[in-house]
């Protein structure tokens, strides 16, 4: 039965109100912070404070089983909670802890779950990613970092790159090759390790939107036996598809990072309504009106994508079933985002160049968000998503 409304009962509407009330009390007026493009220690601290408050409510682990710090609540409740977080401009959960939690819940040993899930739920331990390498980006299976058996444990050697905010993290999830010379996707294993271990070195990579990513070097890092997450040699299917296919996890919520764009659109529309250009409000200009309508349409589509992803992951089918539609949707966002920013730069004109000071538009938000839009390739390029759509979705030859 076609239904796009998530909160269709009084109970669920009450839940939405509870979430909204929490946000109003915890971050009055919203708190705009994207850890990918921000190195301010005060704002980082405020973001962590916020997620610790969410953790105290038990809401980060809302849908996890009770045995592992969760509340066993429904996917739709999680969806509604995150929709409120998006609308209210809450910060995203810092770095990749939630993805690690998904992998732990699926493939971790009871001891690993006990050891790590609490820190993620309470946001007391931050997790970074060790996936990409200088020679293995889109083609992740070309990775050459190795983990060699050594007694009970492992010796890790290699280099990871583009590790978003790894310098803020205490732990890392790393993909490494445990068997050399086998078919590319086989022989890759997943490890979880403390960044305090001897032999781990970080080097900063500053991105063009004021954030920091990192090179992570592993020089004979000695890992204990319980650093292995999941089955040896099976990380490609167990973990990576759990990640790349992360969007397929039941009850995929809307993406806070993507929904930032709605806030920019509100700012833009406000600016166009109050700004006179050539003797008339900018939003009366017929070309600008069409551009604003196109941007609005794109943002509405993004919201529909969130609902489609939810429906796809919980019902696994709508009339023209397509198992890769969540990847299609993510790929589309990756193309839309820079296009959105380019369009508003066209509308705003020269003042949008000014980054700070009294002459900057909206404290430079537009200028900064334009720069950030080239971070759209994090988690896989738009082109790679297109190739996945074509081959896995449409069945075209590889």
């Amino acid at each position, binding site marked *: *039965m*076609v*239904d*796009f*409304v*998530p*909160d*269709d*009962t009084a109970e*669920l509407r009450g839940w939405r109100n509870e979430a909204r009330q929490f946000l109003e009390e915890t971050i009055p007026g919203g708190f705009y912070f994207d850890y990918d493009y921000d190195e301010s220690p005060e704002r980082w601290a405020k973001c962590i404070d916020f997620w610790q408050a969410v953790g105290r409510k038990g809401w980060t682990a809302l849908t996890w089983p009770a045995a592992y710090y969760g509340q066993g609540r429904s996917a*739709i409740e999680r*969806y509604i909670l995150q929709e409120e977080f998006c609308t209210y401009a809450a910060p995203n959960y810092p770095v990749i802890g939630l993805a690690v939690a998904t992998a732990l819940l699926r493939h971790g040993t009871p001891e690993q779950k006990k050891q790590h899930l609490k820190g993620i739920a309470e946001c007391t331990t931050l997790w970074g990613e060790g996936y990409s390498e200088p020679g293995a980006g889109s083609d992740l299976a070309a990775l050459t970092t190795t983990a060699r058996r050594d007694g009970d444990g492992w010796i890790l050697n290699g280099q990871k790159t583009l590790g978003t905010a790894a310098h803020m993290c205490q732990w890392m999830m790393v993909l490494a090759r445990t068997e050399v010379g086998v078919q590319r996707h086989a022989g890759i294993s997943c490890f979880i390790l403390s960044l305090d271990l001897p032999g781990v070195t970080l080097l900063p990579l500053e991105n063009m939107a004021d954030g920091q990513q990192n090179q992570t070097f592993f020089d004979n890092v000695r890992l204990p036996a319980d650093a292995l997450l999941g089955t040896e040699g099976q990380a490609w299917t167990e973990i990576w598809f759990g990640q790349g296919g992360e969007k397929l996890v039941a009850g995929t919520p809307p993406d806070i990072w993507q929904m930032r764009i709605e806030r920019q659109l509100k700012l833009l529309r406000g600016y166009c309504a109050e700004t006179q250009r050539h003797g008339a409000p900018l*939003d009366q200009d017929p070309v600008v*009106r*069409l551009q*604003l*309508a*196109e941007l*609005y*349409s794109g943002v*509405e*589509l993004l919201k*529909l*994508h969130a*609902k*489609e992803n*939810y*429906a796809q992951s*919980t*019902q696994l*089918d*709508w*009339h*023209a079933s*397509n198992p890769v*539609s969540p990847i*299609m949707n993510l*790929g*589309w966002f990756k193309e839309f985002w820079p296009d959105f920013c380019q369009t508003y730069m066209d509308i705003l004109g020269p003042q949008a160049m000014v980054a700070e000071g009294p002459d900057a538009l909206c404290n430079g938000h537009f200028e900064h968000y334009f720069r950030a839009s080239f971070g759209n390739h994090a988690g896989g390029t738009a082109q790679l998503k*297109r*190739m996945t*759509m*074509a*081959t896995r*979705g*449409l*069945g*075209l*030859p*590889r």
Partner: protein
Amino acid sequence: MAIDLSFNDTQTMLRDSAREFFGAKLPLTKLRERTTKGDFSEAIWREMADLGWLGMGLPEACGGFACSLSDFYAFYLEMGRQLVDVPHLESVVVAGGLIAAAGRDADHATLAAIAAGDTVVAPALFEENGGHCADDVHLTIDGGRLRGRKMYVRFAGQASHLLVAARDGGRLALFLVEATQPGVTITSLPNIARTPLYRVDVDLLVGELARIGGGRDITAEFNEVIARAAILLAAEVAGAGERILEFTVNYAKERSQFGVPIGKYQAIQYLCTDIALHYRHTSLFALHAASREGEEDFLLRASLAKAEACRAAGAMTFASHEVHAGIGFMEDYDLQLFTRRAKLWENLYGDRRAHLEMIARLA
């Protein structure tokens, strides 16, 4: 169940029976034989009436049955998939919808005749610039005469009646006119879509005409009904898109050049994924808009759906031509049928520009 995009039993049944019926009765091969009348024939219309399809959404007292816009959506997906060219949208959805919304009890006989298939009504609403809302009706009653021109009237040449929109002292009014009566001149407009499209010139005395709904203004009802039509055109585009995607992908798998299937080339893969994205986005917007019937944002949702559909119709056929190259340019190949129809979809009940302007106004 919160957030569920799957069809219920009624919708599945409507979709499946439409697919079966139109697939058997009006396959694409027959489309090449049609020239001036589209798919319309007494026989087809009678069969559609017998299946109950001409009573969709019309009052039960008139032989109709309740039909949500989501139900219509399921049916129109198949109409688009099969490029069906019958006056269902015109006579049942738009004329029937307008008469049901704006009419009085006296007009129920007309609705019963529409549902039974005895009367086919072609709405003659808009003028040389096309249109998608009441503001686009300019023809004005002057000195008791309804005199002027209506354009792009689909199926006027096959209809028994026309439903003419005009301004009467600033208010919007509808008149039911017999297609053959003196003072009505119907002229065929040969067109890219090869759909039966007409110019209608009227010179009639208002006092002698049947006015729908008496003298009250019916702007709100009018805009709602046209919004429904726009959403169903978007559903047709989605249905067509599903089919364009299928045959384009199949061609890319089968056609070999330089020793490999062309679908192995990323340039071709991009074109195919373009079609997939446009098709999915149109269906998503249209399905969502359909679910908002009766809600405050209905007109906005309708414009979002139609604006997307207009872009998709052009972009999907373009991409498919790029994949097919020479063969797609041939009259014998199915693609050209979709390319032609796309232009009708892009222009009927508001083009992309008009709906973007509506979005700018309503959002």
